[in-house]
């Protein structure tokens, strides 16, 4: 009753009421013994002593740290104790939940087949799992040491120093077993790094086997093909032969030539794969290549009526001349192949702030949007019948993609079915060698 009334009075009201009541009772008691002020003082002292006792008890309860039950007191002290207990329990609950999640996280990362190393912003090892320990030959006592003091592969040291963590690096491991490791750094938090290590030996081996197989198979196919082509050549020029045979013979020769083209393309693809990851930086006279490409297109039996091949810049590309020629040739050749005689073909080479660009636009049959992402796969055909009719090997765009990758360039494909396509190669600025422009010579 009283406590409810007190609560209704609010903060200051409650305190004033209690003090007033104490003073009043003290004064009344003191009045009976004839000393009202002594009574007031005694009552206040009793209240004060009681409050101190409660405070002490609360402190002792907290020190005992018994979180099961609060002391059952009435009034404000009791409420205080209950509130504290509630807070304490909530905190403990959160803590145990957090710990459980943390433990599960640790256990799961420890069990990962891939190695994980946590690094401080100064590249010091903070934590690692078992797989990382095995793959990188770390020891449990290595926490706090710099990672590049223990993982000393020169490629990794420069990878860590340069800070370009977009793609993983491949390292030949001298570790417990010889093989290949893929290392990737991932920045997180405040400058911290996560090092992920994967054993890619089996993938690397499979990849090498596949490459070897393609190279060997195409190489082995070439010799019998040369013999067949040679005989066909002789036979088609032999007038004494039955004229009925001449039709099939011409067709056989044409197919043999096509097969030869496929084998040559396969060989150049495997050469590209065997070459260094990055193309050399020789000066490539793009304007010269483009002039040659224009002649090639015009020399075709059937070519689009409008052929515009323009080098707007005399800037040289830093790369591999043969590779660039074969890539650009493939793009222009494709455009010429798929554009009807009434259509047009535009090729353009230009340089701007983003780097150098080579674009080939045609008004050919175009490519349905769903096929565009897969165009550069080997032997991928939008329409099987169509590409065979034009005599393609199905490898042209795969070659283009590989050449561009080696030059740090990207291929952009825009196309709408029935209207035409545009293939654009974007070369980064560091692959371009600028020359001073001479007016009047920037167009061929």
């Amino acid at each position: 009753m009283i406590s409810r009334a007190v609560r209704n009075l609010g903060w200051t009201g409650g305190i004033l009421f209690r003090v007033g009541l104490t003073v009043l009772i003290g004064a009344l008691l003191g009045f009976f013994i004839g000393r009202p002020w002594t009574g007031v003082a005694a009552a206040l002292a009793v209240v004060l002593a009681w409050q101190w006792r409660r405070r002490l008890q609360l402190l002792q309860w907290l020190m005992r740290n018994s979180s099961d039950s609060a002391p059952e007191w009435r009034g404000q002290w009791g409420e205080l104790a209950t509130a504290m207990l509630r807070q304490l329990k909530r905190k403990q609950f959160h803590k145990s939940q957090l710990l459980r999640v943390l433990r599960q996280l640790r256990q799961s990362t420890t069990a990962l087949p891939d190695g994980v190393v946590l690094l401080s912003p100064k590249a010091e090892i903070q934590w690692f799992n078992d797989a990382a320990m095995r793959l990188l030959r770390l020891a449990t006592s290595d926490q706090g040491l710099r990672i590049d003091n223990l993982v000393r592969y020169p490629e990794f040291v420069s990878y860590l120093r340069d800070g370009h963590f977009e793609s993983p690096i491949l390292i030949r491991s001298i570790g417990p077993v010889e093989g290949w490791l893929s290392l990737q750094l991932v920045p997180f938090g405040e400058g911290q790094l996560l090092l992920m290590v994967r054993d890619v030996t089996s993938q690397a081996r499979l990849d090498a086997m596949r490459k070897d197989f393609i190279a060997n198979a195409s190489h082995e196919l070439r010799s019998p093909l040369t013999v067949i082509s040679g005989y066909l050549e002789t036979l088609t020029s032999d007038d004494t032969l039955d004229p009925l045979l001449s039709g099939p013979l011409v067709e056989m020769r044409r197919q043999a030539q096509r097969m030869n083209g496929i084998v040559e393309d396969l060989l150049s693809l495997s050469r590209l794969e065997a070459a260094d990851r990055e193309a050399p930086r020789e000066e490539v006279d793009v304007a010269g290549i483009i002039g040659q490409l224009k002649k090639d297109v015009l020399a075709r039996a059937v070519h689009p009526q409008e052929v515009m091949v323009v080098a707007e810049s005399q800037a040289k590309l830093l790369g591999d001349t043969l590779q660039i020629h074969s890539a650009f040739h493939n793009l222009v050749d494709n455009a010429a192949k798929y554009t009807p005689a009434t259509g047009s073909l535009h090729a353009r080479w230009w340089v701007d702030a983003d780097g150098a660009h080579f674009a080939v636009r045609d008004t050919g049959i175009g490519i349905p949007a769903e096929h565009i992402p897969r165009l550069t796969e080997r032997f991928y055909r939008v329409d099987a019948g169509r590409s065979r009719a034009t005599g393609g090997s199905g490898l042209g765009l795969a070659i283009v993609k590989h050449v561009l990758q080696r030059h740090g360039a990207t291929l952009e494909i825009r196309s709408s079915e029935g209207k035409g396509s545009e293939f654009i190669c974007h070369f980064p600025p560091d692959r371009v060698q600028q020359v001073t422009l001479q007016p009047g010579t920037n167009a061929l």
Partner: protein
Amino acid sequence: MDPADLSHHTSRRFNEDLERVRTRVLAMGGLVEEQLLRGLTALVEGDSQLGQSVAIEDRKVNALELTIDEECSRILATRAPTAGDLRVIVATIKIITDLERIGDECEKIGIAASRLAVAERPSDHYREVRHLGKAVQDLVHDALDAFARMDAGHALNVARRDRIVDDEYESIQRQCITFMMEDVRQIRRTLDVMWVVRALERIGDHAKNICEYVIYMVHGKDVRHTSLDSVESVILPRSG
């Protein structure tokens, strides 16, 4: 300015200097390890181009030795280190000399490998040499690890393993002599193989030297030209 603060500051800068030198030495070690791996690969796979490039890349190792040497001299001149710090600098200068020598041996392996690439390869694909090569690679790697971790106990164990390398060297040498006596036409080729094996054995010795410098750094005892068992009695009471 508070003098205590100043000394704290200089010692922190000094520590950073030492730490940087150490990281550089280990980076040089990594480069040497890679040179060794590439030299052996060139031999086993008969890749003369790779062998040539190993010989050329030795320049990088030499350049690193010069830079680190200069850095150490600068620290000696400007910081005048004493006690443990002085030992670290002195040992570092010695370690890079050994690393540079390992680099030179790798260069020899590279040259011999590119010469052997044109010769007929043995049917066992240099099985013994590969085995010795692996042991030496591990030796160099573990010696550098001991340096990175400043672990004298580990360094002692690694130094002991140099014996195995020496034994294997002996046995390959005997084998080569037999080859040469059997077939005089093989002498030229076998001599080149001996050249590689000899280089590997020397690399093992240099790795052992590095281990001895690590023990010197940690315990302040020069353990060169002492038997490894007496070394153990020196470091055991302290390394537990």
